[in-house]
């Protein structure tokens, strides 16, 4: 999507936006929109909802700019955690932005996602929010340590939660859930 290779970290770009360069904020959209959308699509399975959720995640990033926890200068883990949270209650999360988003145009190709992992999505939703966030990050290719940092837990606590969550899912689904999901690209 972008043209020039901007070498700045997400945090540096965000700082520029906060300092008044509003266009720099759009650079974060260019960088991370597709990853956030992919994650939202995995959770919601409805294209329009996933697109809405993606927009809301970035609007929330602006609103909560001083509270974003980075991982090695990247805000993508924070965006993905926020995606998990937004998708849990899209109505409530989108309420403050509804008027602005409803005014935007759409094109007519509205293909919906295919795929057979509806079981996994339903099972994930039975987990506590923080476990959903942790598993979501590991599904996106982040290590346990990075996922821990993103949600603000110690690595040990995160590891324990992830292990228990996977066991619960295995019990519910009758199979190991994680190996079936390949993330589209690894983390940067």
């Amino acid at each position: 999507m972008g043209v020039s290779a901007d070498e700045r970290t997400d945090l540096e770009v965000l700082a520029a936006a906060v300092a008044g360069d509003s266009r720099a904020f759009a650079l974060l959209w260019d960088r991370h929109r597709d990853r956030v959308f992919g994650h939202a699509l995995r959770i919601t399975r409805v294209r329009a909802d996933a697109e809405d959720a993606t927009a809301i995640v970035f609007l929330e990033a602006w609103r909560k700019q001083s509270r974003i926890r980075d991982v090695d200068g990247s805000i993508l883990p924070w965006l993905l955690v926020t995606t998990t949270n937004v998708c849990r209650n899209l109505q409530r999360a989108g309420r403050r932005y509804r008027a602005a988003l409803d005014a935007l145009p759409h094109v007519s190709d509205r293909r919906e996602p295919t795929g057979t992992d509806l079981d996994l999505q339903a099972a994930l939703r039975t987990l506590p929010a923080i476990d959903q966030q942790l598993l979501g990050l590991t599904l996106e290719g982040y290590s346990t340590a990075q996922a821990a940092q993103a949600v603000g837990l110690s690595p040990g606590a995160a590891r324990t939660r992830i292990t228990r969550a996977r066991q619960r899912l295995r019990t519910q689904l009758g199979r190991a859930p994680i190996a079936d999901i390949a993330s589209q690209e690894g983390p940067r």
Partner: protein
Amino acid sequence: MTPLDYDPAYSAGVRNLLIETATPRTSKRRHRIWIGISLVVGLSVLGAGGAVAANYLLPGADIVTDTSTSHTIAGVGPSDISIGSAPAGTNSLETSLACLSTGTLTWPDGSSMNCTSTDDANHPGSASIPWSHTRTVFKLGATAGTRWRLTYTFSRHQPTSFATNAAGQTYGIDGSNRHPDLIAALATNGRQGYINAKEQAAADPCRSPKNPAAAVKCTDDNSGKTFTIPVYESDGTTKIGVFTIGG
């Protein structure tokens, strides 16, 4: 899972919304200036689609940094307005000029805006004009008795280069002094792409008037007519939508 593309029209809209959201309150007017620039300096390519210049990443777009906060002043009739010394590093002045009564207002570079309705106060004309940092007076032209309101912000523009595609065509944001082969434009379906400068010129029925009188007659004869040309990807051949000129 088949990877799906994010709706491109919606994405363009969200992207602009994010820029609007991130624009500091004191310079919200300056942001609208950037979108409205075509209205004043006659860059017709941005007239119908609009908002292209707000895209930070398009080649050829100036990187604009404010060097001051914005100031607002109101007055009546033609005026030499003292706006003080510009901060170091300034090379431009962002202006937003609104008519508070009917009449014509003229910028120092000769571009003008004609206001005929009371609603024009809500539709300021905008221009970014080159400004030497030693210059302290803004020479505003106006019809006698016309009330006006000027908002200005000192800024620094840093130009970026056009990019070149595989076919050797340059592409990017059109400017008053430099023109790419493919001009950035927003298609009517909301997608961002490029129109071919030659196709744009060919679609203009008044491109080669024989004399000034013929130019005026041609414009009058064609007033209200619209022409549609294709919008391409940066490769100059993949069509992604259409752009409407005129009207």
